[in-house]
């Protein structure tokens, strides 16, 4: 299909979204991610029966935690699509990128880059060719 989607997205492969734990999402934010979204199989189509449903619950839980810490739960999302939905995958990537761009950078990263990194672009924290 040769579809393109925003290059700012880093894909972390897991055997099933049911493998994703609360701490994985929190660590992503600690390490400077601006947003995290889970792409699981369609509900009812999980090879392991309930992996994607568990992931959905965990996303809801982690949203609460991120609201409490001031990062903002809206930076996390869960999408369900099938392996045949390449178009939608690219669409979701664009949708999420736009949503997170509108929210601005992860507030932790902002602090981190201004406090500790003299040249954020050089450290790979900001795009060098905007």
């Amino acid at each position, binding site marked *: 299909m040769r579809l393109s989607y925003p290059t700012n997205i880093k894909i972390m492969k897991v055997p099933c979204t049911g493998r994703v*734990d*609360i*701490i994985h999402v*929190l*660590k992503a*934010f*600690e390490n400077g991610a601006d947003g995290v979204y889970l792409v699981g199989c369609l509900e009812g189509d999980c090879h392991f029966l309930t992996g994607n449903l568990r992931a959905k619950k965990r996303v809801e839980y982690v949203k609460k*935690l*991120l609201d*409490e*810490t*001031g*990062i903002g739960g809206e930076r996390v999302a869960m999408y369900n699509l099938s392996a045949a939905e390449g178009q939608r995958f690219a669409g979701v990537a664009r949708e999420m990128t736009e949503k997170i761009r509108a929210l601005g950078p992860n*507030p*932790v990263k902002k*602090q*981190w880059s201004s*406090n500790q990194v003299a040249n954020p672009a050089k450290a790979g924290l900001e795009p060098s060719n905007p």
Partner: protein
Amino acid sequence: MIVANRKPFEEIIEMVKPYSRILLLGCNECVTVCAVGGAKEVAVLASEVRLFRQKEGRPVEIKELTLERNCDLEYVETLKPIINDYDVVISMACGCGIQFVGENYRNKIILPAVNTSFEGVTEEHGVWTERCQGCGNCVLDKTLGICPVTRCAKSLFNGPCGGSQDGKCEVDKDIPCGWQLIVDRYKEMNMLEKYLEIQPAKDWSTSRDGGPRKRIREDLKI
């Protein structure tokens, strides 16, 4: 097992406000099983605190550590070489563990990150319910394994009371009437005649009324 609930994040973050080097202590026993203070929950709370403080511009250093037990000197002693490297200890262990660490490191402030709630069971994954209040004088033989002290909101010994409606307690429609459970159990076991026995007033001297309790087994003392 001892069941606890995590304190609200705002409360925890307020407690640790003055500190920048924190030892976050979990426990591998009951609080791990009830998913409130094991290694996983320690990691999540540490991450939350780091995120919050980083955002505030006051980064914090957190050492995550989960002891096998916080209520046993053997494991609490292992903190000795590192505890003084930290300003404060936040404990996710039950109330016993929190106090025991505090007793053994008197120069350290120990802050609780959980509210210790009850002695209970895992009814299903993610659901814990109370079963025992540790009254010190078990009557489960008389009530066929259903505790009237815990399961009856009034801890009645000759129940049920008038608040029992359709098998539910008047305290909450989701709480089964303890005495209904007991009567149902008598019926199930064809022992309904036991229900006719009037139970005398319970001796509560073995319960909390006598202050903190103590158990000694001389043969085990070293």
